């Protein structure tokens, strides 16, 4: 127990003084996972609206694929992306391995099916006549898409939060394609693993607290928006 209390006390000290580059690591986590989720949102809206609104042969198969993608183990994604990006791999020429961009790619592959699945479900749940009504009101295709997304904004927000939660908590893929390099590709989760393997519990606890606070803040936003919607 002493270990934990010492660790927590030391953790607060670290947070206060900014040792162990905690803030640099936190910002990087936000940047990498944030970018991954932003790209996933674009993909999610494009593919999700296609799936939700258009009938085409193989539609059910497409839905199944998206749902399968949601359940992909992140570490498997990491291994596949790493194999592609290693110098010995097909995309080695791009020199992307062990860079933040490689991590963004891996995290996007992990988050995109989640965001797409949620988006498609949210759009599907809207009344089918709504789109006709909006077109009838004179909406162009883009205007219609924007209005429909705004109508579904709550489930979309949930999708983004789910995607972000998945991306920012992810370790396996991030280490494999990022290499956990200090000052470059080290993020909150990979830093925790490193500090634990070194036996440095205080920074590990400090980093964990930041990670928890981040996830809490993100969920707080979602809940607040939901409450506002329900009140109006």
């Amino acid at each position, binding site marked *: 127990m002493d270990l934990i209390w010492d660790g927590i006390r030391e953790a607060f000290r670290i947070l206060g003084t900014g040792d162990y580059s905690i803030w640099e690591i936190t910002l990087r986590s936000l*940047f990498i996972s944030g*970018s991954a989720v*932003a*790209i996933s949102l*674009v993909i999610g809206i494009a593919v999700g609206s296609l799936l939700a609104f258009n009938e085409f042969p193989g539609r059910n198969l497409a839905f199944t694929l998206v749902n399968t993608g949601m359940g992909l183990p992140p570490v498997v994604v990491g291994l596949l992306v790493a194999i592609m990006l*290693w*110098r*010995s791999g097909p995309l*080695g*020429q791009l*020199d*992307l*391995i*062990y*860079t*933040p*961009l*490689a991590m*963004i790619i891996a995290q996007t592959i992990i988050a995109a099916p989640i965001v797409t699945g949620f988006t498609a479900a949210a759009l599907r749940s809207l009344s089918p006549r709504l789109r006709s009504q909006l077109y009838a009101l004179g909406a162009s295709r*883009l*205007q219609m898409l*924007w209005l429909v997304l705004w109508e579904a904004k709550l489930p979309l927000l949930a999708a983004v939060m789910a995607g972000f939660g998945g991306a920012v908590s992810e370790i396996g893929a991030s280490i494999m394609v990022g*290499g*956990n*390099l*200090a000052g*470059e590709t080290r993020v909150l989760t990979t830093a925790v693993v490193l500090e*634990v*393997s*070194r*036996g*440095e*519990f205080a920074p590990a606890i400090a980093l964990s607290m930041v990670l928890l606070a981040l996830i809490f803040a993100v969920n707080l936003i979602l809940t607040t928006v939901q409450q506002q919607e329900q009140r109006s």
Partner: protein
Amino acid sequence: MTWRRIAIVVALAGLLALAAAACGGGKEIILATTTSTQDTGLLDELLPRFKEESGYKVKVIAVGSGEALAMADRGDADAVLAHAPSSEQELVDKGSVVNRQLVMHNDFVIVGPANDPAGIKGMESATEALTTIADQKAPFISRGDDSGTNKLELKLWDKAGLKPEGQSWYEQSGQGMGATLQIASQRGAYTISDRGTYLAQSSNLQLEVLVEGDPALLNVYHVMQVNPERFDGVNGDGGKAFVEFMVSADTQKIIGDFGVDKFGRPLFIADAGKAESELGLE
């Protein structure tokens, strides 16, 4: 309309990401090494100097020896710093690595709980200590991760004529040295560690050095280049610069002093230029 704004934001985000990635450009090498090396903090001391002197930034990928050498064998790294001599030799024979040079050594120690239930403290032979542990069925944690440490441990069991895998008192952590030491400390179990990592973490551990000094416990580090003739994309100049840096007189001095102020004794003994036979290796 709002669509244009969204498109701009996304494009900017994309550009930023690319810029961030591009920042990694310039002179860089990938160094495949082991977790124990990184965990001692030696590289944190040396690499900034290397950058200043040569201009190369080093991307340190710290994994088990097995994976580090596998990376070299695929051409996915530019230089390797490892401590698994027989496996390294295989790669030299294959032509995957060149310019292999002795850098430093330290030793392994057998550590365990202070109360030493198996009674191995002070033994001079590592194999004798391991045999005793097996007889007593005292808990033992192995790294089990194909690292240099692990290979040495397995060689010792082999020498003692024992097969501990699968027995109830023998567990494999599959992780780095730091984590394995933690597990042993929490469980009151024995393990083999390189002295460097043990010293670096000893304040957090409830383990003591029980057996040391046996030549069979020597831990020898070599540095080598991944062969640029054999693999495309390997940075031959960078790799060469790193090897030369590691065996240079200045670096060797730093290695020899490393750890003294913190632990009272150096973690490594600098060996560049010596003949292998001087160390008493088989």
